[in-house]
């Protein structure tokens, strides 16, 4: 989630209050988490509220919430004309300028951070939208063009440079060029923003040095480009609202596409009709109370309430609220405006009698746990992510491999619990022997007839590690637990060859003629490869099959 950092003193100055607790409480209700770090305050804002990605935006939201400010309507004066020949990989642009911005060294730094926050989150690392901020007074001409240029034959002065380079050189030699140069490159063409004959930006890569912002800048020219017209417009609105916090004039543009004209920024409050019945049912607040409470609640959330009756509330949605897609979003703001803690609670009905249906799986699992604990085994709880290396010692079937694993230690999902037991044994070799453990957990098996190719399967495995192993020990425990399940007399072993186990010391466990699991001693070669120095015997049971063997008399 984006985090906005600013000095506490700056926040207090902008807000005109220095009651920190009141401030933090307001932020809490505006979905923010705050952390004080000496002089600074770090405010974690929600990713849907891009208007709160800046200190000014947060201050505005708090002022509205506290009722010390009313929703502000901005009417831009349209001056710029922007001709667009839509670049194929980045067809949309929105332009505005805000005058009289109160910049200094600190606030300029914050402004750049705000821009980066929009780039990395909502802008999807400049792929979806990118922002250019310029000093309006340095603009060579108000005649603005947005089009593709040939990267070999077109030249510009990139930010923090005094020399002119070809666009190709800028893309290849600047740090930003290397990071973002690929995003909108279309063979030998790249989008560029012209002021007169001069390139002032190479969206989404870099600006020109000609229009560079400085702490002395007072009037800011903004370009937003991107692949989604709505996102481009939304971001421009959020920036304009932030910069106009200082009260300066907002200038707009006529953006002329080949087939249509769009005026930016579009700062019109969109009208929305919220159904009072819906809001009442959704929140659990009676209509009478809603009609009384909603106007104040909505206003402190930045809406302008046009009218309200028992049927509808007509609200104007602030142009920076791109998160409002449905009337339910306004309903949430009514709840927040009233305060979640003031809504009251309504308890749900608890069933008078408990459902008596006995769950086969639960019964099996609990029975096995009881039996194994009685036999001295300790239950473990391990990750189902394991290393493919250890899995491949046993796997006869494919297992799921993670494409983007963070480490080789956790790059696959287990298809058996045996590797999990072995990992535990390995890390417990220093402990007093014998080590007797068991786990009941899910594994993932290949499933060719499943729609997703895999399926979860519940397994149970137990094992012993000791200075020497006597097969009869685990064999006896196996018979003990099957006896506890009431199926002991139908269990037999059959010689079995299985990867990872010693031939002649591995058996298929059968209930009548169905295989329910495997018992065996792990092969010394496998043990050594894993880093184990003590012998190990294990049993793994397939609970799905085992469940079928349970007598019906124990179930409903």
């Amino acid at each position, binding site marked *: 989630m984006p985090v906005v950092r600013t000095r506490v003193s700056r926040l207090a100055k902008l807000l005109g209050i220095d009651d920190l607790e009141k401030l933090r409480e307001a932020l809490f*209700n505006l*979905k923010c988490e705050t952390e004080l770090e000496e002089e600074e305050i770090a405010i974690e804002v929600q990713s849907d509220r891009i208007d709160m990605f800046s200190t000014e935006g947060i201050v505005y939201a708090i002022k509205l919430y506290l009722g010390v400010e009313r929703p502000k309507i901005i009417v831009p004066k349209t001056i710029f004309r922007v001709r667009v020949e839509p670049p194929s990989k980045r067809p949309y642009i929105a332009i505005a300028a805000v005058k009289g911005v109160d910049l200094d060294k600190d606030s300029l730094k914050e402004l750049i951070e705000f821009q980066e926050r929009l780039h990395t989150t909502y802008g999807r690392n400049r792929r979806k939208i990118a922002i250019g901020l310029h000093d309006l007074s340095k603009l060579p001409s108000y005649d603005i063009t947005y089009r593709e240029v040939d990267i070999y034959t077109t030249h510009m002065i990139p930010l923090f440079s005094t020399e002119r380079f070809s666009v190709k050189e800028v893309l290849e030699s600047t740090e930003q060029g290397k990071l973002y140069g690929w995003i909108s490159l279309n063979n030998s063409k790249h989008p560029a923003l012209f002021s007169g004959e001069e390139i002032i930006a190479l969206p989404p890569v870099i600006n020109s040095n000609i229009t560079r912002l400085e702490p002395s800048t007072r009037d800011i020219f903004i370009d937003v480009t991107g692949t989604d017209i709505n996102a481009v417009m939304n971001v421009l609105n959020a920036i304009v609202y932030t910069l106009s916090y200082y009260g300066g004039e907002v200038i707009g543009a006529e953006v002329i596409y080949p087939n249509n004209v769009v005026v930016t920024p579009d700062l019109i409050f969109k009208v929305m009709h919220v159904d009072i019945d819906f809001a009442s049912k959704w929140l659990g607040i009676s209509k009478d109370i809603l009609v009384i409470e909603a106007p104040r609640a909505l206003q402190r959330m930045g809406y302008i309430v046009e009218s309200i009756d028992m049927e509808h509330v007509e609200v104007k949605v602030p142009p920076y609220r791109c998160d409002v897609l449905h009337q*339910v979003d306004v309903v949430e703001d009514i709840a927040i405006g009233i305060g979640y803690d003031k809504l009251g609670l309504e308890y749900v009905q608890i069933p008078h009698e408990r459902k008596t249906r006995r769950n086969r799986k639960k019964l099996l699992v609990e029975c096995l746990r009881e039996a194994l604990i009685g036999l001295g085994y300790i239950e473990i*709880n391990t*990750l189902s992510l394991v290393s493919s290396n250890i899995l491949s010692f046993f796997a006869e079937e494919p297992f*799921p491999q993670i494409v983007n694993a963070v480490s080789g230690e956790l790059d696959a999902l287990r298809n058996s619990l045996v590797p999990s037991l072995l990992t535990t044994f*390995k890390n417990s070799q220093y402990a007093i022997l014998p080590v007797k453990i068991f786990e009941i957990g899910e594994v993932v098996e290949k499933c060719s007839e499943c729609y997703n190719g895999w399926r979860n399967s519940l397994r149970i495995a137990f094992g012993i590690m000791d200075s020497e192993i006597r097969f009869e020990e685990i064999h006896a425990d196996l018979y003990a637990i099957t006896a506890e399940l009431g199926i002991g007399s139908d269990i037999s072993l059959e010689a079995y060859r299985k990867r990872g186990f010693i031939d002649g010391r591995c058996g298929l466990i059968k209930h009548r003629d169905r295989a329910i699991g495997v018992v065996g001693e792990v092969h010394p070669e496998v043990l050594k490869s894993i880093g184990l120095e003590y012998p190990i015997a294990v049993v793994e049971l397939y609970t799905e099959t085992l469940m079928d063997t349970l007598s019906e008399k124990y179930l409903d």
Partner: protein
Amino acid sequence: MPEEKLVEILIEIGKPLDITYIENVMGKEVANIALGWARRRGWVEVLKKDDKTLIKFVKYEPLVEHRNILAKYLNEDEVSKDLENKDVFKELVKRKLVSIYRRKIKFVKLAIPIEKAEEILRLGEGISRITREVIVKDLWKTNIIKPYNLYALPPIKYAGKKNFFKEFVKMIKEVMESLGFEEVEDDYIIPELWNFDILFQAQDHPSRDIHDILMIEGVADINRFKEVVEKVKVVHESGGSSGSIGWRYNWSYDKASKLILRSHTTAVTARALIGRKPPARLYTIARVFRRDNPDARHSPEFTNFDGVIMEEDFNFKKLLGLLTQILKYLGIEKLKFKPSYFPFTEPSVEGYGYVPGYGWIEIFGAGMFRPEVLEILDLKYPVGAWGMGVERLAMITYGINDIRLVFTSDIEYIRTFPIIKILAGGI
């Protein structure tokens, strides 16, 4: 000594003697030894005359010390350090006239008082292990049963025990079942469709990024869920008939088919709700996966507890009430609600619980399923949903400060986790 014998002969004859004469008298071997040592001591001279070798007497000093030493060790005896270092002694060793070897000595001393030792001697063959024979044949009447050393520590043993975390999960399941909730399950490997798309999460949402979720090669055949897929497409693109404007982009079937490890279990409860009629109360407690590096606070795999409730007249106030009820069962009495954002709920809320010793702790995320989600899931009535991380809650309950300990492969940690703590913590 041979060299003395040689000198004796020379003195007796009184003139230099031919070597062959001496060899005849003494034997060749002994004569050689005698001649060697006599020359070394300067007692004789060897003269060459014509082709003869003559031995001439020079002087004689009796080898008293040699003889004394040999006499002393006629029987095996200890050698003093001084003597061992004497040249004469060394010479005798070298000439193999004496042999020397080293021997270690151990000393034994009675560690108990004499009386005690005598008592042990007197008791003779006492009984150490009581066997069936001892009882049946009354052996204990004629023999003394040896006392144990009650002050010695016993060997260490460990009780078989249930895992504390599994017990904690079981406790939550019991709470949910007593509240009338039914458990639902699904696979770990699912298409993005269930994890994101049915929850109205836009396909370019950052949380769907390769940096956040774990991916599996391949795609699912989501064509089997045609109705849902069609609804997802329409609602994402334009809101469908949900009253929403939608996300306004081109929804991709391929993206929705991609296989991932589920990153939350709302994917399980939401899918299980599809097409249900109210009332419905579902929950799940199961593993989820994120692309996180393991550290004290993060695990790439952890446990989600998710629930959904649908009733004809369900609402946000009831959801807050239900969560308060559940948390009371889990031992958290004081709660506060913070507005929050989740892509699939509106209103959205985060619950903070007050835990003595910890302060206010974020416990759950919850909210009412958005109308867009209801439309996709083909539901006609409001649904409340919540989710929480179980490990964090268990860690608070048991006072554990590292999530990796919940999944530990160190048996000693589990062995020494007292059962009393498991039972007391989980109530």
